């Protein structure tokens, strides 16, 4: 694996330090501070705090949300001089179009079209359209580690040959949610972030974007993404593990991934947000890994603030810039050593030859990521760990629909009954520990219930070590509650509880905490393909592991937000939500049904239905290998999906049983996760039940079930016996 060097063929960056790699380098060389008082939106008197805002940025062009525009700036620079479209895009973001949504909600706008750029996935989809990418377009949202996690996923895509060129990085814009949210957590330093300083009081919320064009082709200057490692604290929703357990695990995993020893790291770009707890925990982890004399290190968040999902990607660009230009960036804002920390950062920028740089990014939910950038020759020639090649197989499953938990839902679905609906809170929360869920609204309850049911009665050694969750819309109840209270109190009294719960990866973090899962913890958000993206992420992250991974897709219905964000083109589908979870594990020689994402491409249009047949290997393969197809035709893109399905059927000649499963599960972004659980049951039973096969059971005769996702983009998941 690590014998395929992944080079940085292009990069683009925009932050409070300026626009473009050249400008960023100059700012770092000059030890500049880019923080300034908030002006983007109104804060109550006395609450105008320093932020890392991108300046010189057209404020009038409101057609596209700020996050999308920041991403475009970084992408344009990364792809300048590149004549071919990237094969895939992986983008980390936590804000999506929320800044625009906040204003729309304040103005009581009820036109769903105005909210069309709200979803996290719309940022990467916009880039795909702009630069003609028709391959997989993944969106990850793991709070402040999103950008670094995106780089890890891109790295694995390139290593396994799924793509040759991937555009990857992170983006977030300033918005009320993060500004007031972090303020409610008392994590903002009123004087501006002073990472590692004894007097540090917190971070400065910021914005920015960075995208890297990663390539499997050798590049002249040879600066590579050498490796990356992920971990989860499984400790607390917002606070890091006090001893830096998760940080240590991520750094250790990244070194192993790159085939490097701690002694080979020339510079550490710290997460270093400036919050007392983060810096202390990270410092402890650094001491544990590097001993008393770590390599030169610094945080650049005193200079640019904390651009959240963009941070990991911006810092990867900075790492490459530092290597190319022999620069150690200074720790802006640092003045007084903190004896408890025992770490002395590089105070002023200075020249030094650098070969290998480690960069840390840690986030809410205890989501940690470390990336290592360096010259390929810096990597020790170690044998790559062996790859476990068996596909992921199903060890456990659970689902929720309006008809109830797992067995009740599944039985009804297989009997062809419509299960669309929203479980009441009491039924939804059955068997969940009351104290644990006291602050949970709808989505985390669903998540924990699915996880506990999918992992029920497992021996400790078979418990999952990684989590990959897909959600189209995230925790809508928490997001709405936070924004509503913020508006009602005119910015005075935002709820810390709702802010913590509003991040897309909060449910995955809760699962990790409650089940003690300390490996990679990923949340994807890809519209109606969110579950498929979670499956892909799980597959990419477990290539060298025989441990189990929990993969789930779930979405909640919210009476105010859902009709605005996901309006149905079909009249009045019933309110519905739910999800599905699968416990998966690579088990060579096992006999459980196996699940694999076979094809995924972005873009809409009927033609993509025929393309899908080609991606699956042609009409003969579809005809010979698949005994039934479960088709997802989202109500919000029903006409497109119907045309895609017609094109697929024509191109493949498929004439077996077809189930339009959303008519049974109801309409929600991750309905396909429930359909996957249905598919597994059919494969286990060896037949499509009578009610779904047109009156009489239809034997699969050893053939697989195909799960198709249509609409905005097309995806195909195969479910088969070994």
């Amino acid at each position, binding site marked *: 694996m690590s014998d395929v060097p992944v080079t940085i063929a292009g990069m683009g960056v925009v932050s409070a330090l300026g626009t473009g790699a050249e400008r960023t380098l100059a700012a770092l060389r000059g030890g500049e501070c880019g923080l300034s008082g908030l002006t983007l939106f109104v804060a109550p008197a006395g609450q105008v705090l320093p932020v890392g805002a991108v300046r010189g940025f057209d404020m009038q062009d409101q057609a596209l949300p700020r996050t999308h525009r920041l991403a475009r700036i970084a992408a344009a620079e990364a792809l300048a001089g590149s004549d071919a479209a990237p094969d895939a895009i992986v983008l980390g973001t936590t804000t999506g179009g929320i800044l625009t949504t906040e204003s729309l909600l304040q103005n009581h706008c009820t036109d769903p079209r105005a909210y069309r750029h709200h979803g996290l996935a719309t940022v990467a989809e916009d880039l795909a359209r702009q630069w003609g990418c028709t391959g997989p377009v993944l969106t990850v949202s793991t709070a402040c580690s999103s950008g670094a996690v995106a780089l890890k996923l891109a790295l694995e895509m390139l290593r396994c040959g799924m793509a040759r060129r991937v555009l990857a990085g992170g983006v977030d814009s300033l918005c009320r949610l993060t500004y007031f949210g972090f303020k*409610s957590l*008392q994590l903002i330093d009123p004087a501006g972030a002073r990472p590692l300083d004894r007097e540090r009081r917190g971070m400065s919320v910021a914005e920015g974007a960075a995208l890297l064009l990663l390539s499997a082709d050798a590049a002249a200057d040879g600066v590579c993404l050498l490796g990356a490692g992920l971990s989860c604290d499984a400790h607390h929703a917002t606070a890091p593990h006090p001893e830096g357990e998760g940080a240590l695990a991520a750094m250790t995993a990244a070194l192993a991934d790159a085939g490097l020893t701690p002694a080979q790291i020339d510079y550490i770009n710290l997460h270093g947000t400036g919050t007392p707890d983060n810096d202390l925990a990270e410092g402890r982890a650094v001491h544990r890994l590097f001993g008393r004399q770590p390599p030169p290190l610094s945080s650049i968040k005193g200079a640019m603030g904390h651009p959240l999902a963009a941070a990991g990607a911006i810092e990867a660009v900075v790492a490459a810039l530092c290597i190319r230009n022999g620069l150690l960036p200074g720790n802006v804002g640092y003045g007084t050593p903190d004896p408890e920390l025992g770490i002395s950062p590089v105070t002023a920028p200075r020249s030094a030859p650098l070969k290998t740089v480690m960069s840390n990014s840690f986030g809410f939910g205890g989501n940690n990521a470390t990336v290592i950038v360096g010259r390929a020759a810096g990597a020790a020639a170690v044998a790559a760990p062996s790859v476990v090649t068996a596909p992921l197989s199903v060890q456990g499953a659970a689902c929720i629909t309006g008809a109830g938990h797992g067995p009740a839902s599944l039985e009804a679905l297989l009997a062809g009954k419509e299960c669309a609906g929203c479980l009441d809170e009491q039924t939804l929360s059955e068997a969940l520990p009351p104290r644990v869920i006291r602050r949970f609204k709808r989505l985390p309850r669903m998540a924990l219930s699915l996880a506990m049911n999918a992992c029920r009665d497992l021996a400790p050694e078979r418990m999952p070590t990684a989590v990959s969750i897909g959600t189209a819309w995230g925790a809508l109840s928490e997001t709405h509650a936070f924004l509503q209270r913020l508006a009602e109190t005119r910015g005075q009294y935002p709820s810390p509880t709702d802010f913590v719960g509003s991040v897309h990866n909060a449910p995955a973090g809760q699962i990790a905490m409650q089940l003690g899962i300390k490996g990679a913890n990923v949340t994807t958000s890809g519209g109606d393909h969110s579950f498929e993206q979670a499956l892909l992420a799980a597959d990419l992250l477990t290539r060298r592991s025989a441990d189990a991974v929990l993969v789930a897709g779930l979405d909640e219905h919210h009476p105010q937000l859902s009709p605005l964000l996901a309006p149905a083109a079909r009249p009045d589908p019933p309110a519905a939500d739910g999800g599905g979870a699968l416990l998966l594990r690579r088990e060579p020689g096992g006999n459980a049904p196996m699940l694999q994402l076979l094809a995924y491409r972005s873009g809409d249009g009927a033609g993509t239905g025929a393309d899908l047949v080609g991606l699956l290997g042609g009409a003969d393969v579809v005809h010979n290998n698949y005994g039934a197809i479960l088709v997802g035709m989202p109500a919000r893109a029903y006409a497109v999906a119907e045309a895609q399905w017609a094109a697929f059927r024509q191109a493949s000649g498929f004439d077996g049983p077809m189930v339009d499963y959303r008519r049974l599960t109801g309409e929600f972004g991750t309905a396909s996760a429930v359909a996957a659980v249905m598919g597994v049951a059919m494969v286990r039973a060896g037949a499509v039940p009578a009610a779904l096969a047109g009156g009489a059971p239809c034997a699969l005769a050893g053939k697989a079930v195909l799960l198709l996702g249509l609409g905005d983009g097309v995806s195909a998941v195969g479910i088969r016996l070994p």
Partner: protein
Amino acid sequence: MEHLIEELKVKIVDILNLPDVTPADIQTDAQLVGGELGIDSIDVLEMVIMIEKDYGVAINNKELGAKVFATLGTLAAYIQEHASELPN
């Protein structure tokens, strides 16, 4: 003061949604955070907002918070001392 303490008990149970705690369970001089009640750091922040909103008293950093939220008694005393309009 007694009235304030009783009022705070009701508010705390209400905003923190503690499933098996009643106002009577909160002892004036017992450890408030990290003890048997199950009140944690996020609850503290939620109480900070409530106290600022309902009593106009700001507790805006962690060190101060640790002292003020030691017990319900210390919390009530702090509010009593700093509120401009005392709620009797």
